[in-house]
């Protein structure tokens, strides 16, 4: 058996020491993400005066420019960065865990579960709120957790590694099953609600304040904390569970951490912004095409590029047809798709 590139990287056979590569990559991708987050709040459907926005002598309640900057734009940009980073990082982990390039944050049924929760909340006009979470995000979070728990229960047996094929198939099947339930709920709902449910599926970052962000931040942070120590093990896992086990990876534990971390992160992102597609599946591939396959670099780089990408897409979504918005989920795929194909063809 030949040692594949990620495995070689994990063993330490990289061309340059990992620390230097990591620093260089983080500088470049971090710069792109920071640039996007700095530029995006300056541009919008209306033009505001920055000096007035930061003028402390005007009371906040009277300062429209400050309100537009701090209540409308900044939370949006932060939500885009957080959701983009979350989805892209989960994409990296799941593609490695399932050893499948088509895996995305939504492969495990989490998005369909959260969508079902949101649909039910919208259709039945749920009014239960919890702390910073208003009813629809709360319901979507509940749906995501329920779906993840279900898939997890199906794919694990005590003391044994998860079966990735069972995980994959259970996720895909659950996705279809939930999608059918979603269609059923939509079909039975009043059609004004039906339209709103469809709109929810297109993704929306206009969160209107930092409160919704605070509601999901603990989840995403917890998820990331579980994913952060995994890249070396993922490098070995992407070769195969047996190969990883012989090199001392606790396969069952790694899989568990990856799955739960991915589920938490995705649930938070989807509750915040809706099931925005494309970021989670393509940004990781984009990063691999650019910098190789070592997950120790790919994971943080993907998170940063995902943040920059979604912030950029949202910028387009809110300005291109202003005052009408194009849902951000449409922009991500319409813009990212052709670009990715171009890169794919050029590299191939």
């Amino acid at each position, binding site marked *: 058996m030949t040692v594949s590139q990620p495995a070689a990287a994990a063993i330490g056979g990289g061309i340059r020491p990992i620390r230097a590569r990591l620093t260089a990559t983080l500088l470049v991708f971090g710069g792109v993400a920071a640039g996007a987050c700095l530029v995006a709040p300056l541009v919008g459907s209306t033009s505001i005066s920055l000096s007035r926005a930061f003028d402390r002598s005007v009371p906040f309640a009277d300062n429209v420019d400050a309100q537009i900057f701090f209540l409308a734009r900044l939370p949006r940009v932060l939500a885009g960065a957080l959701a983009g980073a979350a989805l892209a990082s989960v994409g990296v982990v799941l593609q490695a865990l399932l050893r499948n390039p088509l895996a995305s944050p939504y492969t495990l049924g989490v998005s369909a579960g959260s969508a079902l929760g949101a649909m039910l909340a919208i259709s039945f006009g749920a009014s239960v709120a919890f702390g910073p979470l208003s009813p629809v995000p709360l319901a979507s979070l509940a749906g995501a957790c329920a779906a993840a728990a279900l898939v997890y229960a199906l794919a694990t047996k005590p003391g044994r590694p998860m079966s990735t094929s069972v995980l994959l198939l259970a996720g895909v099947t659950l996705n279809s099953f939930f999608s059918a339930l979603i269609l059923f709920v939509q079909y039975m709902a009043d059609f004004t609600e039906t339209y709103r449910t469809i709109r*929810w599926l297109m993704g929306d970052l206009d969160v209107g304040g930092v409160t919704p962000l605070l509601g999901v931040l603990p989840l995403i942070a917890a998820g990331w904390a579980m994913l952060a120590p995994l890249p070396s093990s993922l490098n070995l896992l992407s070769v195969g569970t047996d190969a990883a086990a012989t090199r001392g990876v606790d396969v069952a534990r790694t899989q568990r951490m990856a799955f739960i971390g991915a589920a938490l992160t995705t649930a938070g992102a989807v509750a915040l912004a809706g099931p925005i597609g494309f970021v989670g599946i393509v940004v990781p591939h984009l990063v691999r095409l650019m910098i190789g396959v070592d997950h120790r670099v790919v994971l943080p780089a993907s998170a940063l590029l995902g943040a920059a990408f979604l912030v950029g897409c949202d910028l387009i979504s809110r300005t291109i047809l202003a005052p009408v918005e194009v849902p951000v989920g449409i922009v991500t795929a319409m813009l990212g798709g052709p670009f990715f194909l171009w890169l794919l063809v050029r590299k191939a």
Partner: protein
Amino acid sequence: MAARQKSLILVCALVLTACGTSVVTLARANPAGFAPQTSPSQAKRIVSLVPALTEMLFAIGAGPQVIAVSSYDEFPPEVAALPRVGALLDPDVERILALRPDLVLTYGSQGPIEDQLGRAGIRTFSYRHGGLQALLSTMAALGTATGHAAGAGRAARALQAQLDAVRDRVRERPRPKVLLVFGRQPQSLQQIYVSGGAGFLHEMLEVAGGDNIFADVRRESVQPSQETLLARAPDVVLELRAAGSLSAADLARERAVWSTLASLPAVRNGRIHLLQGDHLVVPGPRVGIATEALARALHPEAFK
């Protein structure tokens, strides 16, 4: 009713046995009964798939001819007793055919069912929501189609008079900049749907003495961002809620959601109005009272 059905069945049976005609020709047979229809303008058995049109039928005096309505119909109270035959997305063609209507009122996007009914020899009346003028002309067209031209004329004049009365009352008042909301996510300011500068809601607002802050967007529905809301700074927020009746506490909570946009004149002056009732969003004969409700919220002093 029962006797009529029995004789219909009898005639059908006779036709079948006597001439051995196919089911197709039977379906094409005059659905209204025995004698050939005297005039196409005398629909006697009407099925309405559009709540706004149902309301119009009752307003022009064609109520007794309505034999079935859509699953969304709630007004007037008489519809409660009528059979339901689906609605926009799920019309139950079998039930409609079984009811043997001679006129089915459909929405403009229901082309397939119009074709299907046409093949069964049943006339359809296709309609799409439009502005107030379209509403008045639809009422007139329904009058012709159902033999209630005079009733339609009366109803249209009454509605026009209501609208004129509202317009006159607020004529001298300063016109506030209004955000007219007809849907949003509960307890948050996300996914807000507001009226653009087209359609009956926009026109009702104009009559009620308000300036729509999205009048420049020539669409019936706009989903503005928080930024646009802040930038356009409405003096008044009017929220229409068609479904359900919220308790006073829920209403207060939904109103409080707007307070995050503290710089909006509407928020600062406490001019967030939540109006409830399906009459507010059905473009039927009740747009007169709905327009008055908007005007009362915008110009309470004009109604003292």
